[in-house]
C-alpha cells in the first residue's frame, strides 16, 4: 500500500455530522491516484476531529495504543493547533482505514502501525496540520459571519474571538458554517515551539479512568453474539507436523464443539502462522482449555530435533573461527590492528528472549462468504488485514479490522500470525471465533529476540586511542523465513552498519555470520540494539580499562564534536554522537561519578543511539561477598528531541529501564531437543516490584525542533550500564546475559 504522502492536507475534507457537529478528516470515498476525489462523500467522513454541539471535541486516534502512550500524545498535536482546552477533548480509537484507489489500495487515515518508535515522528507535522486546518476554517466561518477580515479574528480555547468588536462564537456555534467552506489548499502556518500551550506539558494517559475502573477493553475482552472460543495445541517441537490426533476424550468435554487440524507453514516458508497444530473450538474459554488438555496429538519428527542451546553456542564458536560476510569495511583494519600497540578482544553472548506481553495473543475473527471482521490487539492493523487476505479469498476492502487497547506489544504484535490462526478457525467453522493463547502458548511460541555471540576487537595506539575496531556477530537473524529478504541482505536486521563507532574509528570492519537455527525470530523491542549496545558498551569499558583510561572520557573522545554523521538505517538520516556526550556528562554529574565508593560498590555507564533517540544510564550497584547484587541507584537520561508529553516520555524511560534490567537480570529462552524449555512466569521470571530499584531517576534533555519516538530508546543502555557497574564494584566481568547466578557462582 502506498502511504498518503503528498500534501495530505489537500485531501482533508470537512462536513456536518448528523448531530450538527463539524468534522474534519480524510474522505471516505474513492481517491484516485492523482489525489482528487472521484466519488461524492457518502456522508461518513474518516474523521480526525469532530466539534460536537456542546463544544466538546472528539479527536480520533489512528495508531494502535500498546502502552506507549500515543493515544494521548498524538491527539495533543491536533488539540494544540486546534486551540481547544485539553479538558474538553475526548479520544476515540479509529479502526484500520484503507481505501481503494485506481491502482490499488492506500491508507485512509495515513499510515497506521506501532513499530520502530515512529508514531510521534510520523504524525508530528500531519496531525498539527489537521488541527490547524480545522481551526482555520472555524476562524474563516466567524470572520464571514461578522463581516470582518479574517486577520482580525483568532482562535482561543474553543472559541473564535474578534478583538476589535469583542464578538465571540464557540466552535460548536460555527460548526454548520465551517462545514460549508472548502478546506484551504495549503496548511495554515503552524505555531512556533515558543507558543506551545499543550505540547510539552505533562498529561495523563487518556484511558486511565477506564483502566482503573476495569472498563478498558482489550482484545481478550471481545465478545460478539454467537461467538465461540478456540485454542490451538501447537507442535511443541520446532517445525514438527501433526501425525495423528486422538480427540476422543476432548469431545467428551461438555461445551467442546469441534476439533480439527491446522496446517502450519510450509517447510522453510514464511510463517503465516508459527506452527502446525490442532484447534479445539468450544462454547466457553474454560471448555476450550479443558478440551485441549485432554487432546492426544502425535507429532512428526522435527527437522530440528537436535537443536539445543549448547549446540547453538557451539555453532557460534565455530562460525566465529571462520570468515563471515563483511558488511562494512573502512580503512584498513588488518594493517591497523597489526600496527596497534595494544589489542583487546572479547566475546559476548546474548540469549533468545520472549516478548511476554501480559495479555496473551488473541483475536476475534468472523469470516463470511464475502467479508471478514477482525477485532484484535495488534501493532500492525494493515498486516492484520493482509493476514486475513492471505488465508481467505477476500480482497482488502472486504476485511475490516478494529483495534482494541493492546495489553503490551514489545514487537510481538507486529506479526499477525494469531490473526491468521483465528481467521483459519472461523473460516473452518463458519462462526465468529475468538482464538485465545495461554501463557504457555505465548512463552513456547514466539518470534523470539535473536540470539548471538559477539566478538569485538580493538587496536590501541601508545596514547590509548582506538585505531582499529571490529565487531563480528554470529547470530540467528530475524529475517529468517521472510519472503522478501535475500540471504545477502539478512545481516541488515542484526548489524546496523552506521552504528557507533562507524564513521568515527577510521579502520573498522563489521562482519556477520548466519547461525543455522530453527527458532522463529522477530522484532523484540529495540531490535538488534539491545544486543549490540550490550556488546559495544561493555567492550568500550573493557577497552578503557585495558588502556588505563576512564570509560566516560574514552567515550567522549570517540563521540567528538557536535556534528551529524550519516546514519542510513532506521532512525536516521543522521546521528550526532555529541548528543550522547551531553547525556553522559549530565548523568555522570547526577550520580557523582567521580566520588570514591567503598569496596564492593561501583558505578557503570552506557550510552546508545536507538532509532533516532539518544539515551544513557548510570547505575550504582553493590555486590556482596556472596554474590548478591543490589542495584542502589539508577539514573536514566534521554534526548528524544522535542518532548510532546513529558509524563509519557518519563513513563517510557522508566519502563524501558525496567525492561532492560529485568531482561538482563534473569531472562532467557533456551532449547533442548528442539523444544522451548520455559513455559510460564515461574521459569521465565519477569521482574516483580521488589527486584527493581525503588526509584529510577529520569532526566529528559530536549533538543531541536522535532520529536523522536520513545518506545524503545530507554532499553539498550540499561544492561551494559549494569554490567559495567558490576565490574567496577567487584572486578567481575559479565559477558553473557542473563546475569542470573553468575556472580554467586563466581564468588562462592
Amino acid at each position, binding site marked *: 500500500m502506498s502511504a498518503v504522502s503528498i500534501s495530505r492536507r489537500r485531501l482533508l475534507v470537512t462536513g456536518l455530522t448528523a448531530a450538527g457537529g463539524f468534522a474534519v478528516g480524510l474522505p471516505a470515498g474513492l481517491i484516485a491516484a492523482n489525489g482528487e476525489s472521484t466519488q461524492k462523500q457518502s456522508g461518513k467522513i474518516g474523521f480526525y476531529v469532530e466539534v460536537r454541539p456542546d463544544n466538546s471535541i472528539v479527536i480520533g486516534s489512528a495508531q494502535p495504543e500498546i502502552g506507549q502512550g500515543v493515544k494521548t500524545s498524538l491527539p495533543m498535536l491536533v488539540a494544540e493547533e486546534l486551540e481547544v482546552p485539553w479538558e474538553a477533548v475526548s479520544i476515540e480509537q479509529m479502526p484500520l482505514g484503507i481505501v481503494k484507489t485506481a491502482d490499488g489500495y492506500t491508507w485512509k487515515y495515513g499510515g497506521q502501525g506501532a513499530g520502530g518508535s515512529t508514531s510521534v515522528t510520523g504524525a508530528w507535522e500531519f496531525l498539527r496540520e489537521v488541527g490547524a486546518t480545522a481551526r482555520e476554517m472555524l476562524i474563516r466561518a466567524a470572520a464571514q459571519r461578522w463581516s470582518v477580515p479574517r486577520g482580525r479574528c483568532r482562535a482561543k480555547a474553543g472559541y473564535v474571538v474578534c478583538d476589535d468588536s469583542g464578538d465571540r462564537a464557540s466552535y460548536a456555534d460555527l460548526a454548520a458554517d465551517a462545514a460549508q467552506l472548502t478546506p484551504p489548499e495549503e496548511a495554515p502556518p503552524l505555531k512556533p515551539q515558543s507558543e506551545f500551550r499543550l505540547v510539552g506539558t505533562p498529561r495523563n*494517559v487518556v484511558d486511565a479512568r477506564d483502566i482503573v475502573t476495569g472498563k478498558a477493553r482489550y482484545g481478550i475482552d471481545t465478545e460478539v453474539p454467537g461467538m465461540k472460543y478456540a485454542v490451538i495445541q501447537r507442535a511443541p517441537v520446532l517445525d514438527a507436523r501433526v501425525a495423528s490426533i486422538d480427540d476422543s476424550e476432548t469431545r467428551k468435554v461438555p461445551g467442546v464443539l469441534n476439533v480439527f487440524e491446522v496446517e502450519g507453514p510450509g517447510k522453510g516458508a514464511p510463517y503465516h502462522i508459527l506452527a502446525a497444530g490442532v484447534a479445539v473450538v468450544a462454547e466457553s474459554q*474454560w471448555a476450550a482449555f479443558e478440551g485441549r488438555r485432554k487432546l492426544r496429538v502425535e507429532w512428526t519428527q522435527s527437522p530440528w530435533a537436535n537443536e539445543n542451546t549448547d549446540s547453538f553456542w557451539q555453532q557460534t564458536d565455530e562460525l566465529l573461527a571462520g570468515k563471515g560476510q563483511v558488511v562494512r569495511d573502512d580503512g584498513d583494519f588488518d594493517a591497523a590492528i597489526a600496527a596497534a600497540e595494544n589489542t583487546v578482544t572479547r566475546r559476548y553472548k546474548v540469549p533468545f528472549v520472549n516478548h511476554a506481553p*501480559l495479555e496473551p495473543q488473541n483475536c476475534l475473527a468472523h469470516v463470511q462468504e464475502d467479508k471478514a471482521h477482525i477485532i484484535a490487539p495488534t501493532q500492525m492493523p494493515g498486516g492484520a488485514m493482509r493476514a486475513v487476505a492471505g488465508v481467505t479469498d477476500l480482497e482488502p476492502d472486504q476485511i475490516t479490522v478494529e483495534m482494541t487497547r493492546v495489553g503490551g*506489544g514489545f514487537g510481538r504484535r507486529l506479526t499477525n500470525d494469531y490473526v491468521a490462526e483465528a481467521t483459519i478457525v472461523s473460516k473452518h467453522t463458519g462462526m465468529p471465533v475468538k482464538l485465545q493463547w495461554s501463557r504457555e502458548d505465548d512463552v513456547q511460541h514466539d518470534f523470539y529476540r535473536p540470539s548471538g555471540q559477539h566478538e569485538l576487537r580493538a587496536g590501541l595506539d601508545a596514547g590509548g586511542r582506538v585505531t582499529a575496531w571490529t565487531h563480528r556477530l554470529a547470530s540467528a537473524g530475524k529475517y529468517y523465513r521472510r519472503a522478501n529478504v535475500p540471504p545477502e541482505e539478512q545481516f541488515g536486521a542484526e548489524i546496523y552498519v552506521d552504528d557507533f563507532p562507524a564513521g568515527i574509528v577510521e579502520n573498522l570492519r563489521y562482519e556477520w555470520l548466519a547461525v543455522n537455527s530453527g527458532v522463529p525470530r522477530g522484532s523484540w523491542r529495540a531490535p538488534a540494539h539491545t544486543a549490540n549496545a550490550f556488546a559495544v558498551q561493555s567492550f568500550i569499558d573493557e577497552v578503557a580499562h585495558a588502556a588505563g583510561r576512564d570509560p566516560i572520557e574514552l567515550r567522549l573522545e570517540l563521540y567528538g564534536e557536535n556534528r551529524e554523521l550519516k546514519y542510513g538505517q532506521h532512525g536516521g538520516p543522521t546521528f550526532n554522537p555529541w548528543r550522547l556526550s551531553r547525556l553522559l556528562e549530565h548523568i555522570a554529574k547526577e550520580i557523582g561519578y567521580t566520588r570514591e565508593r567503598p569496596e564492593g560498590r561501583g558505578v557503570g555507564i552506557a550510552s546508545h543511539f536507538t532509532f533516532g533517540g539518544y539515551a544513557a544510564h548510570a547505575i550504582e550497584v553493590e555486590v556482596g561477598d556472596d554474590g548478591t547484587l543490589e542495584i542502589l541507584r539508577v539514573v536514566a537520561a534521554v534526548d528524544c528531541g522535542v518532548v510532546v508529553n513529558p509524563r509519557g516520555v518519563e*513513563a517510557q524511560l*522508566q*519502563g524501558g529501564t*525496567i525492561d532492560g534490567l529485568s531482561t538482563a537480570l534473569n531472562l532467557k529462552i533456551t532449547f533442548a531437543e528442539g523444544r522451548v524449555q520455559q513455559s510460564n512466569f515461574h521459569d521465565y521470571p519477569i521482574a*516483580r516490584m521488589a527486584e527493581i530499584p525503588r526509584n529510577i531517576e529520569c532526566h529528559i534533555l530536549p533538543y531541536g525542533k522535532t520529536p523522536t519516538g520513545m518506545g524503545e530508546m530507554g532499553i539498550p543502555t540499561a544492561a551494559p550500564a549494569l554490567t559495567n557497574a558490576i565490574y567496577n564494584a567487584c572486578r567481575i566481568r559479565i559477558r553473557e546475559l542473563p546475569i542470573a547466578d553468575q556472580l554467586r557462582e563466581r564468588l562462592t
Partner: protein
Amino acid sequence: MESFTVNGTPAEFEGYSSTPLLWVLRDHLKLKGTKFGCGIGQCGACTVHIDGKAVRSCITPVTAAAGKSVTTIEGLAPSEDRLHPVQMAWLEMDVPQCGYCQAGQIMAAAELLAGNSAPDDDTIDAHMTNICRCGTYVRLRKAIHRASELAAEV
C-alpha cells in the same frame, strides 16, 4: 450449582465446579475487568477479593467462592462518582501504561491498605508481587503511598 455474590449482586454458576473463578467472572458474568495473564497464579492480573481477601482467581475454583462475597475491580469503587483511594491515587500518579495488569495491581493494593493503612516500602515489596510487563513499578509504589494518604483524609 454455586451461589455467591459479586459486587453486591447475587450470582449463580452451573457449569463445571472446577472452573476457575476467573472464567466464571469473565465469560459467565461478563465482568471483563479481571484479566487472564498466566493461568497459574504467577502474575496476579486476575486478583479479586473473596470476603475481602485477595485471591488469584485463575487458580481459585468457583467452589471456593460459594456462599461468599466476591469483589472485582468493577465493584471496588464505593459509587459511580466516588472512586476508591487506590483508584484515585492511581489516577493522580498516572500509573498505567498498557494498563492490562492494573486491575489486579489495584485489587492487591486495596487489600494491602485495608490491613495496613501506611505500609512501608519493604511491606509493599513483600505484598505486591503482581507482574507489570511495562514497568510501572516506580509510579505504582508512589501511588500506594499516596493512596494511604488519601484514605487517611477520608
